[in-house]
């Protein structure tokens, strides 16, 4: 079945490439349009058209736990029962990688609160990446995805690691044809998007809709801060929270924001804290600068959420800081000086008690794992 599917896809692909070659050669010749029309008609008759990539199923209002705002939803991808379930299935499917060994969940593993517990992630054939896998939890709220913000939506993010040679290392065409070979998937995609073949856009949209349900809230902190439960935090955690918020003490909330009615613990912006600066004062990983080419963005990375932070060690974009205490010490020390250091980063006078209170507070940010986000049950 898989073989048939593959050869079918291959022949389609070669047919398209022939068409394009004809088109390129005779770009200005009048008859080409006619030839192309006939060709496309033949294509439509020979196989399925992609159809619309707008979900058709029943739209779901994503339930938000205490401490989180409503989930932002793009107009062209309302989450549906079908796309969420399909996205969940895809998220855990290793067929989206070259040798069927890796899925999204390999690096965003629910057992590690959707990270992988490693300094930097391992991709195809054990190749090491250069950055620490960020959690998927609450990624739905971020204005940018990836440490350097190179994607601006979950949809855009989803396709990238699949095709990245050091990650899942499989072209989108191959991913599509592997799924097309599975009648179950074909049916699920039709149910989710209506008639048409599987496309990378549909895969990305489904994954994004699933990820919008991977939320973390209702932590001890949320129950204390937003739920009025004064006993939800320990005295040490309450002191830690005060230090966290106070601009003259921890100043943590300057970037790891807490709003009046909700807390994302990230401003969604890019900051240089000095992590990763080399002995010669330069950054081997230039971070945000890679996207913007703005010099002051050198060595800046997106503020990560702190939700579930106790379960997502090691820390920082390069995973070089191993413990929460080391993170707090890093900031207490004022990070690493460099020409692009964020103005909010400076040495802070924190007592040992302050530092351990901050660590205790960070442990209160572990929320409940939402239902239906783990690997789908095998039928």
């Amino acid at each position, binding site marked *: 079945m898989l073989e048939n599917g593959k050869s079918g896809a291959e022949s389609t692909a070669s047919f398209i490439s022939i068409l394009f070659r004809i088109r390129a050669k005779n770009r200005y010749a009048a008859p080409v349009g006619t030839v192309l029309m006939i060709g496309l008609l033949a294509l439509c008759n020979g196989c399925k058209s992609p159809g619309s990539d707008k979900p058709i199923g029943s739209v779901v209002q994503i339930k938000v736990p205490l401490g989180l705002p409503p989930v932002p939803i793009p107009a062209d991808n309302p989450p549906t029962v079908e796309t969420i379930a399909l996205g969940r299935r895809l998220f855990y499917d290793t067929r989206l990688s070259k040798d069927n060994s890796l899925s999204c969940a390999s690096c965003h593993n629910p057992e590690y609160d959707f990270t992988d517990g490693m300094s930097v992630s391992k991709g195809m054939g054990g190749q090491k990446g250069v950055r620490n896998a960020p959690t998927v939890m609450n990624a739905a709220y971020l204005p940018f995805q990836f440490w350097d913000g190179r994607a601006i939506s979950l949809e855009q993010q989803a396709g990238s690691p699949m095709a990245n040679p050091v990650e899942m290392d499989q072209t989108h065409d191959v991913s599509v044809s592997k799924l097309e070979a599975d009648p179950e998937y074909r049916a699920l995609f039709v149910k989710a998007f209506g008639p048409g073949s599987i496309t990378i856009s549909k895969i990305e949209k489904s994954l994004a809709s699933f990820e919008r349900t991977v939320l973390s809230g209702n932590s001890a902190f949320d129950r204390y801060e937003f739920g009025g439960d004064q006993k939800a935090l320990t005295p040490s955690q309450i002191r830690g929270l005060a230090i966290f918020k106070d601009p003259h003490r921890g100043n943590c909330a300057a970037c790891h924001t807490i709003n009046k009615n909700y807390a994302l613990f990230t401003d969604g912006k890019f900051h240089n804290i000095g992590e990763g600066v080399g002995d010669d004062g330069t950054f081997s990983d230039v971070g945000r600068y890679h996207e913007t080419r703005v010099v002051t963005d050198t060595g800046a990375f997106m503020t990560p959420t702190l939700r579930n932070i106790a379960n997502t060690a090691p820390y920082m974009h390069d995973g070089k800081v191993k413990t929460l205490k080391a993170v707090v*010490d*890093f900031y*207490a020390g004022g990070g*690493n000086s460099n020409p692009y250091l964020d103005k909010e980063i400076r*040495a802070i006078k924190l007592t040992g008690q302050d*530092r351990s209170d901050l660590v205790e507070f960070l442990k209160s940010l572990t929320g409940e794992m939402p239902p239906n986000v783990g690997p789908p049950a095998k039928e």
Partner: protein
Amino acid sequence: MRIHSSINLFCICCVAALAIGCSGKKNAEPAPAHVEQPAVSYFKVDPATAATITGTIRYTGKKPARKLIDMSEDPACVEAHHGKAYDESLVVGSKGALANAFVYIKKGLEGKTFAVPATPVVIDQRGCWFRPRIVGIQTGQVLQVVNSDPVTHNIHPMAEINREWNHSQGPGDPPMTRKFLKPEIMIPVKCNIHSWMHAYIGVVDNPYFAVSSDDGTFAIKNLPPGTYTIGVWQEKLGTQEQQLTVAPHQDAVADFTFKGK
């Protein structure tokens, strides 16, 4: 006519630009050749005439009481230090011997350029303490900063002439290396995380410096004969200097005494 003149102007501009371009290129050309040439010829000491300055640094006041350092803010430091930690800003041994004074040639070596040693100077953060506390380094020589502790340190040389920097170093992090390019007596060093940790770095553009040992003695060896001003710096007691003419192959002596309160 107007068109004509503007064409002329255009031509002049082009020629001028060309000329500037050419001259700019000419200026740029010798640069790589310059790099290949040994930029400086290092001064070589003649072993037949090389002299030595030795001396003892003493403190005459009342021996200061040892002050206990409180590391309780970081329990991991208390554990790592193994025993009590005492303030080392003024360490006086028997017979007033003053340790941890920095001795260097302040004047008399002008115009001489010395090779930079290939071996790095090491500052270790061990037991939540900088070891050594007082360290000398030559301009351009590598400073290697090691963290042997199970805690994060943030070393911060508060340089004024050189570039000031601070850098976090977590437990198990590899050593980091830095250089200081200009002479500076002395650069105070602190740990941004542990308030009691202090060190001082003396940066000199020659190899003639020393730190007095526990018995107050120091030795500056392999010195070319000449007339020198020897400077001494101690973190609590300030500075002193002495002029001294050193004959070929001489073992000269320069003692210093700091008066305490």
